[in-house]
């Protein structure tokens, strides 16, 4: 046991020394989360605004002009083009110059007095999912609100929307917590995915496997230093989130760090597993990237989890990022506690232990 801890210590110390000497990697540990958070924090805005749009007003009445003015105020659409025919409009859509178009029919005034007929047509570029969603929302809210006064009897439902946890609908509140997970994924998996392969390529492994060093000691020794680095990255993102994007941590900071710790462990374990499955650093990177996209797209970070087909949901339940996203959003925004989310903690731990176990079993101290 003592000898085992000593060997573990030796590997950890060696990793830290190597990392310390590798200036570029060292810089990336700090630089990557900072740049990614700034980039994504400012850029990712799931509230759609300023969509380029065209207007085809066949009515040209006071009401129609007022409708356009009011829609314009919502700043969702920016009517850059006034067109006279549908052909023109279709051409603009096809070319991707506009994402949406508002068509006001010639019999607009007549339709206004008909309770069951649509008064205007909103055309959206269906090839862009987020545009589609935003436009649909607008179609149901803005226009009906406007028409409420004009139209009798009003068909508008008495649904009022209460936005819990993010009343101002600020994007960073939704993106920053998830970004912790995404950024950790990108750095952590890669660190350990190339770890064993690099030792193999440099010939170090051939020496190590002739010593009493065990696979578990080697794997843990590679994981432990990066857990520390992952926690530093998490802290950095939280601080930036708080000071730059005004994203608070409503729940327990301790629970949040435990969640981060487990998620980092799970990602590193996945990396170690990848490392045992590949022969070269290039393959290791390819395989790491292969795990990124499904995790990021299916975890609920980008798209609502509930909207995915069942098999995709089952698959996503395996991914550590899915559980981490739930944990981090729950703890940061909804003040959820350990008790509320215990199953997510367990899922992360189970994934990490399983991955590490498989990796250790796969890694035998031989060259064939």
């Amino acid at each position, binding site marked *: 046991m003592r*000898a085992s801890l*000593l*060997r573990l*210590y*030796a590997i950890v*110390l*060696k990793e830290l*020394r*190597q990392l310390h*000497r*590798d200036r570029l990697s060292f810089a990336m540990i700090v630089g990557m989360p900072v740049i990614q958070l700034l980039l994504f924090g400012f850029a990712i805005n799931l509230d759609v605004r300023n969509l380029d749009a065209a207007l085809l007003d066949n009515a040209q009445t006071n009401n129609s002009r007022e409708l356009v003015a009011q829609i314009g105020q919502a700043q969702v659409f920016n009517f850059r083009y006034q067109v006279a025919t549908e052909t023109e409009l279709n051409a603009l859509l096809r070319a991707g110059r506009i994402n949406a178009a508002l068509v006001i029919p010639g019999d607009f005034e007549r339709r206004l007095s008909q309770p069951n007929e649509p008064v205007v047509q909103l055309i959206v570029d269906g090839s862009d999912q987020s545009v589609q969603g935003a436009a649909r929302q607008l179609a149901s809210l803005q226009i009906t609100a406007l028409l409420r006064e004009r139209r009798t009897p009003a068909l508008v439902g008495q649904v009022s929307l209460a936005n819990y946890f993010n009343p101002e609908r600020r994007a960073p509140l939704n993106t920053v917590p998830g970004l912790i997970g995404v950024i950790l994924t990108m750095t952590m998996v890669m660190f350990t995915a190339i770890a064993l392969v690099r030792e193999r390529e*440099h*010939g*170090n*492994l*051939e*020496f*190590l*496997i*002739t*010593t*009493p*060093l065990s696979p578990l000691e080697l794997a843990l020794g590679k994981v432990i230093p990066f857990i520390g680095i992952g926690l530093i990255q998490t802290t950095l993102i939280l601080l930036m989130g708080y000071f730059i994007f005004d994203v608070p941590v409503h729940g327990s900071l301790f629970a949040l760090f435990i969640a981060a710790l487990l998620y980092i462990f799970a990602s590193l374990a996945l990396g170690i597993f990848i490392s045992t499955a590949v022969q070269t650093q290039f393959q290791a990177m390819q395989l790491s990237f292969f795990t990124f996209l499904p995790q990021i797209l299916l975890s609920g970070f980008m798209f609502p989890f509930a909207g995915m087909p069942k098999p995709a949901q089952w698959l996503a339940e395996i991914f550590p990022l899915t559980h981490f996203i739930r944990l981090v959003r729950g703890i940061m925004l909804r003040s959820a506690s350990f008790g509320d989310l215990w199953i997510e903690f367990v899922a992360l731990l189970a994934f990490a232990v399983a991955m590490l176990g498989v990796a250790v079993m796969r890694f035998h*101290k*031989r*060259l*064939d």
Partner: protein
Amino acid sequence: MNNGERDIVIRTHGLTRKFGAATAVDHIDLHVRRGEVYGFLGPNGSGKSTTIRLLCGLLLPTSGDIQVLGLNIPAQAEALKKRMGYMTQKFSLYDDLSVGENLIFVANIHGLANTHARRRVDELLELYWLRELREQLAGTLSGGQRQRVALAAAVLHKPELLFLDEPTSAVDPQSRRDFWDSLFALTEQGTTLLVSTHYMDEAERCHRLAILDRGRLVADGSPRELMDNLPGPVLLVECATPRAAQQVLHNAPGVLAAAQIGASLRVLTTASDTDANNTSDNIERISQQLRAANIDAKVAAIQPNLEDVFVVATRKGASSERPS
């Protein structure tokens, strides 16, 4: 050395390893005695490294038995790892750690902590003239310096048995001599060494050696025995036109090989029909063959060396492989 069974530290029987269709090691029987420097001599691809890896338990044999230090390999490979050292062909320590850091790392891996580790590392730095290099990154060392660091790392835990896979392939001649002095110092302490090499002068320093060719053990014994057991005498042919003489003797009856050494030819011959005094018979026969080709040559017997043994041994392997 006569304690027989107890003194055999490596014993293999029918050791074979295939990689797909290729046979890298082909039914090798080895006996290595305690305290000796045992050499593997062979060209690249002859199976030296593969055999060493099989003996360490790094590769699984396709068939055959291996016993090292009384342990069954590969089953008891982990127990062996505490008692053996392995110096790989390629430098296998960390380029981005200093010499001292590398050695302390290896000491920790072998269970030496703190002062014990430092004391042993100091000892090794002293022994292998590495004291001034302690703070230097291993990646910036010269070939000879690297070899010394690698040797220090391989013997740090005082192994009973040390495997060295072409340890001096990237080292200048002076460093090689120093390196071999260090190896003999280890045998004085009772360490058994198994060294692979393709340098004849290194092979000559071994107590005993095995010549490997295409995965097969084609000859083994002490360098003296091997040279004495050559099939016939080695002759030196001096003439004005060694190239022409080589043409004549190439594939001539009674000639195993003729190689040009400077202005002369070194000719390996087979035993002559009359056993009595075959050296003079062979000299006579070679001289006749050359005279018949109008080459005036001076032919004399010379001391055989290991290269002659190597040429004859590997030639035998080649001819037995040739389809009849």
